[in-house]
């Protein structure tokens, strides 16, 4: 029957209880941020190895100018120099 899909039922529920919209919005914001951060960690973190053949140990190839942390309050990564010997 038309109108019994999950989207249509959801839409009708929202119209009957519009006060639920902020709550759904904040829950989506929270879970979305958590999911996106997890995705960022999985794809950008040097501690994670996806490809054992071509990139076996990404933590050995970190450079001083890359920003690995999510937020840099007062560190300018362009200005950092590498003062350690090569591995």
């Amino acid at each position: 029957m038309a109108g019994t899909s999950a989207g249509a039922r959801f839409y009708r529920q929202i119209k009957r209880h519009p006060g639920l919209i902020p709550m759904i919005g904040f829950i989506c914001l929270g879970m979305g941020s958590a999911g996106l951060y997890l995705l960022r960690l999985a794809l950008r973190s040097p501690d994670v190895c996806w490809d054992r053949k071509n990139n076996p140990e990404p933590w050995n190839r970190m450079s001083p100018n890359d920003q690995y942390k999510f937020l840099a309050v007062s560190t300018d990564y362009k200005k950092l120099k590498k003062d350690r010997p090569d591995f």
Partner: protein
Amino acid sequence: MAYPSQLGLQDATSPIMEELMNFHDHTLMIVFLISSLVLYVITLMLTTKLTHTSTMDAQEVETIWTILPAVILILIALPSLRILYMMDEINNPVLTVKTMGHQWYWSYEYTDYEDLWFDSYMIPTTDLKPGELRLLEVDNRVVLPMELPIRMLISSEDVLHSWAVPSLGLKTDAIKGRLNQATISSNRPGLFYGQCSEICGSNHSFMPIVLELVNLKYFENWSVSMV
């Protein structure tokens, strides 16, 4: 150090601790406002003869008290995350000091230039001199230069301990087999006390930490005399 009947945080000695104190003031103010509002509403509810027994619909107020707490939580979370990332920043330390937790004392190693290491035991209460602090003084203090960033590498030789100095906003766990890093940057000279902060056995309350922050000249003389 802490004083009797203390209610708040100890005076800040490092920039991170100042940030933490500001954040604490901001969050505590929010907490006080919410608590006093709730207490006021409770007293209103309990001191009225008016009643309303039929069920009601209250979409507007429900919307407000969904959005407002979420906004308040975001206003608490953003400064908190900012300070969290600030604590992890790279700051080019001039000195590295290693501390190992043992049952039940701390040992310190200054191995950048010389081979300097020593153990730091608590002074028993019966051996205290007049004016010294009970359960807080140690025989060998950790002497460090002030106003310079110093890297602390913290680990343990046996069980879990935690190296904490509240005035500098430091608390880092000492875990066997793991190396944890903290940064000390003191704004002023003086003695700063802390205590082991992870249960580690019978004398867990009796292994304090004392930092003696001095000027660079005094620190250099001290490290030469201790080797």
